[in-house]
């Protein structure tokens, strides 16, 4: 008679099932839909359609511009904030950090609706500034994702590195540009990854701001709304490939436990 021996391998079973059902199979479905037409025949029509249609290409370009602007604005706000926060001698640093994370604990739609009201007051008619409002909305939503990894990286920097630079003749400005900034690149890369890609796809923010502009996410949404699974899947696949390329290009810059550190704070 064989007795059941519980080994460590058994522990992985739930995860394997989870991965299969929610990651691997959907991925295959995505690829399948992207390369088939409405009748289920293998075809490159979706693919050719996307890259020949000036509207979809325009949307891709516009998404990149929006995402890029959002990322740069986030970075411009987040880096100094994270730097000051990490370097400050305030005793309750985590409380300070919380102030920046707190909006994330408030319901998303409430947050964006509130933003919309503020923008309406300021701009009279929010329809006049679609690009500006898209960037403001995205920045508001994604800023914590930029602050956290940069904060984590800077606060983990060994202070003796800065001292060593000063010891070797660098003044404060030199020490910042030669030591602190290059060594916080992993945090910046993590932050960019967490802001840039969602900014290309998170059209819900725009919808809720009654924004008339179209980004990649909106495109997928509209295809799916029209039950065009094939077209939507293709765009999703293109975004997926973009993520892969970005991750590949920055693989050396990212810090192993960077995300874990940032995640723990969330």
């Amino acid at each position: 008679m064989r007795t059941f021996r519980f080994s460590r391998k058994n522990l992985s079973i739930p995860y394997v099932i989870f991965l299969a059902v929610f990651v691997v199979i959907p991925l295959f479905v995505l690829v399948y839909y992207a390369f088939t037409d409405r009748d289920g025949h293998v075809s490159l029509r979706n693919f050719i359609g996307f890259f020949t249609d000036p509207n979809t290409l325009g949307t891709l370009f516009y998404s990149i511009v929006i995402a890029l602007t959002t990322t740069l604005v986030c970075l411009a706000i987040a880096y100094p904030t994270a730097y000051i926060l990490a370097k400050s001698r305030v005793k309750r640093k985590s409380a300070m950090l919380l102030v920046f994370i707190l909006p994330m604990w408030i319901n998303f739609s409430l947050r964006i609706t509130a933003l919309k009201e503020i923008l309406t007051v300021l701009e009279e008619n929010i329809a006049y500034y679609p690009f500006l409002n898209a960037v403001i909305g995205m920045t508001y939503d994604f800023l914590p994702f930029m602050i956290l990894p940069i904060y984590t990286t800077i606060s983990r920097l060994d202070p003796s590195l800065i001292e060593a630079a000063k010891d070797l003749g660098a003044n404060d400005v030199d020490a910042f540009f030669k030591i602190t900034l290059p060594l916080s690149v992993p945090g910046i890369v993590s932050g960019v990854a967490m802001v840039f890609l969602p900014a290309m796809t998170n059209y819900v923010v725009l919808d809720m701001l009654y924004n008339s502009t179209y980004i990649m996410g909106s495109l997928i949404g509209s295809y799916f709304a029209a039950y065009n699974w094939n077209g939507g899947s293709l765009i999703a696949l293109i975004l997926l490939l973009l993520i892969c390329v970005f991750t590949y290009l920055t693989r050396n810059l990212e810090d192993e436990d960077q995300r874990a550190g940032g995640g723990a704070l969330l």
Partner: protein
Amino acid sequence: MQEKKDNIIELRHITRRFEDGFEAVSDFNLEVKRGEFVTFLGPSGCGKTTTLRMIAGFDLPTDGQILLEGRDITSLPPYERPINTVFQRYALFPHMNIYENIAFGLRQKKMKEAEIKRKVEKVLDLVDLEGFEGRAVTTLSGGQQQRIAIARALVNEPAILLLDEPLGALDLKMRKEMQIELKQMHDSLGITFIYVTHDQEEALTMSDRIVVMSEGKTQQIGTPEDIYNEPKNAFVADFIGESNIFNGIMIGKMKARFCGGEFTCVDDVEEGTHITAVVRPEDVEITSPEKGIIRGHVISVIFKGMHYEITIESGRNEIVARSVHTATVGDVVGMYVDPDNIHIMIAEDHTNYFTVDINSEYRLEFNGKMLDTSVTKIIPGSRRQPDGTLVDGHGETIDPARTKITASIEPQDISMTDKVEEGLIEGYISNLIYKGDHYSYVIHTDLEQDLVVDDEYLWNMDDHVGLIMPVEKMSFKLNR
């Protein structure tokens, strides 16, 4: 004038007080000669690193002056000081290769690339890491990283090289090798080294001069030989090598009584002076009981490779001896110390120290009498477990048999009584000195100890007295 010129750096009345009022360094004075190897030695928290950081410019003194070759550099930022530091954990720049790390200081000086290349090669040769220019920091072992850190500092040809416990992270064998190499580097380069360590052996091996520090204050400054052979006070004696330290009194010309025996010594200290006597374990000679000045029984023998460490109990004193011959636990032995090997220090504070026991009930006992205090009160964070055992603040069990508590009490807190049975301990007055407004007595107790007692009234020599020692005036320290 010539004297002044020889000093590369002078620290005058340096004090560093932190915002919370804690004084990390108090009135620190030091003159370092050009080319000297000076070591700051002391336990952690003694202020040695803070002092080093003030020399480097990372920290500013609250009071005092730092002069570099006669120039006041007290508030100069670190990048304007011709001083370089080797950091405790190396602090190599991880995003630069070895070449760039070493070239960092030279680039700040806007040196020509050809010159930089030549200097980097030369300094890599000096630390025995030729050809490492292109390597990444992370591919280097701890020892190699340390050498690069030294090279990175030395390449700038600093007036002074500061080293903050640079060998702390290395294993023993590596540490020994680096000690010798650092010393050789110092001798061949002629650069002034200021070295910080808590390792007394390291300090003794490498230094020209040692500054022993404790609680922000200089305890002694001297050559390694001076510090080892003639410690100025009990702290230095205890910190530099193991020592037997006894309270005692001078009882005649070059005669001292401590540890229940009368010893001849070489220090001419006035009769009646309270003293601290220090005897190194290797200077305790074990003899037959008849030949020794004092006697005791062996309570432990530990083999240490080169020698045996033998602990002997004599009266209430414990003496540690080092011998190439073993001994048997329980044997009664005699002990002799050569007059040359007894170091007499005039006791500045006359605090009485004595050992108290923890009994099986976790009560404190002295001289077979219960003290009215509980163990949990004197060991911070300790508490009784439900099963009756005692644990300390870290949750570790305290074994009463293996734990010793040193109690201390000031002379003015002890009072004498004719009713000897009322005292915690009894003894006879073996010495008295008139101190202007009071008398200072030495009581030789039944436990062969000398306790110092201050009293405003005159008692007679050889009076038999009881000593009343209130528990609330005692302080306690746990030794394991």
